[in-house]
């Protein structure tokens, strides 16, 4: 109860702060739409070997990957905003109060998650006129998967921000984590195009399963085992990431 109340409190404050910096909203909306529109002409040719013969089919493969990369990278980079709050003493001020430490993390991570989901909905809507078709039930499951991805990567990112001894280390660490994850999850293009050894490596990347799950949902196969496998893997990792970072929120000594 107190956790829910405190999380809502922190969430509301984070939403307020986002409205007060509208530039982020503008960037948040235009950036994914650009991705969608600028890649469109390339898609059909590139994805032809995957059996995409029309724009609609190309989008079926490309959009779920784009949504996943949006949530994974959006989440991983959100820790940078925490650095500013740490420097301004806002986290320290909160930690002296009895407010739940888990709520300090969850309120922030959920704000980020909601923001990323709004972007995901916009991208889906923009892709519809290009022929993207996906049934509503699968789409809701896909959004659930995306929300978990965003929550997990945000929690990881806050954890990195809290655990690192200094701010300058944040950018290289996050980049080093994000790049292989992005490449090996086949987010922008499916790993089916990759050589065999690379696919083997990718299978050890939890985000690969998430992306495969997304693709199954968007191609109208919600019953594929990769869907529940992806959901399960991501759920477990999300819980672990949230608890790890919440511990840092209460024990952090930096």
């Amino acid at each position, binding site marked *: 109860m107190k956790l829910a109340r*405190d999380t809502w409190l922190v969430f509301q404050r984070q939403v307020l702060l986002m409205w007060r910096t509208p530039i982020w909203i503008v960037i948040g909306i235009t950036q994914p739409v650009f991705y969608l529109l600028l890649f469109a002409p390339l898609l059909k040719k590139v994805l032809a070997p995957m059996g995409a013969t029309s724009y609609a089919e190309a989008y079926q493969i490309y959009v779920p990957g784009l949504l996943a990369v949006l949530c994974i990278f959006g989440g991983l980079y959100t820790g940078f905003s925490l650095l500013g709050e740490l420097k301004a003493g806002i986290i320290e*001020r909160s930690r002296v109060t009895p407010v739940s430490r888990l709520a300090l993390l969850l309120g922030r991570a959920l704000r980020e998650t909601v923001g990323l989901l709004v972007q995901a909905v916009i991208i889906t809507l923009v892709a519809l006129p290009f022929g993207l078709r996906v049934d509503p039930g699968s789409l809701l499951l896909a959004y659930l998967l995306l929300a978990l991805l965003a929550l997990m990567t945000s929690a990881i990112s806050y954890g990195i921000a809290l655990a690192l001894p200094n701010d300058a280390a944040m950018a290289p660490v996050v980049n080093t984590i994000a790049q292989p994850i992005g490449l090996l999850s086949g987010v922008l293009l499916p790993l089916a195009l990759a050589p065999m050894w690379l696919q083997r490596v990718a299978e050890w990347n939890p985000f690969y399963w998430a992306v495969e799950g997304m693709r199954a949902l968007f191609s109208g196969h919600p019953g594929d085992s990769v869907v529940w496998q992806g959901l399960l893997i991501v759920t477990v990792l999300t819980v672990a990431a949230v608890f790890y970072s919440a511990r840092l929120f209460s024990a952090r000594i930096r």
Partner: protein
Amino acid sequence: MIETKGLRKSYPSGKHGRTVVDAVRGIDLHVRAGEIFGFLGPNGAGKTTTLRMLATLIRPDGGEALIAGADLLADPAGVRRRIGYVAQGGGTADAVTGREELVMQARMYGSRKADAQRQAEDALKAFDLTEFADRHCSTYSGGQRRRVDIALGVIHSPKVLFLDEPTVGLDPASRGQVWAEIKRLRAEGMTVVVTTHYLDEADALCDRVAIVDHGQVVVEGTPEALKREISGDVVLLGLAAGEAQPAADALRGQPCLHRLEPGEDGLRLYLDDGAAAIPLLLSVLNGAGIVPGTVQLQRPSLDDVFLARTGRSIEQS
């Protein structure tokens, strides 16, 4: 109100974190209810580290503390409810107003929305912040921001308030305002622990002080009692560069001198009756061919207390 025994904290340091800095090496404090307690010491003495331990922000490596009846290690949540803490750098967000921050703070302490709004309104009035309460914190002057910080620290009417360097970087008028608020809080029955570099402020405004150095309490007591230990006066001789050493050599052994300390731009002499001794001291110096540029007679300050105990000065560090 606060009793600490042997509080310790060390941090890993060095390039690979293999060595440690002993930031706090066994601090014993006795703070009484309803007093303004000054926590003084040079840079890096361990003041902030001690305050952050008492505010439950970092866990001590050792020692114990009882704050307003709550045990720091066994009941940190109880401590949190009883204390307020204002960090050295404050803690307001730029893009929200002072009023919004106060409401948020009250709600983090568990108040319902309507109650929090009323608490914020009361705090705005008490701290005289109404005029700029609805402007973003980024537009506040240093003094305004500091007063908002303090108002945030006491929104839940704590028994004990910790203030880390509340007046650092402020102009004299704003410092006066901050101290007026601190005295008002004491009048309302709050116990206030405040760190400061400004020893004259601490001297004038604190009921009792503890001076720390290298993570340990050097001395604790009322400013008057501490200064009384340094009996007598201080005579300050302003000397040209390079003259301090020969002057010290010439004066050493004079029976009226208790101690002498070379300083940045002269010598500090500790003696019983400064006014009577000055003519003699000057004639001795003249005999050695030294003519001081200035001569000042002072009562000992808290810095002299520190100097007498450690051989170093806080204000010149």
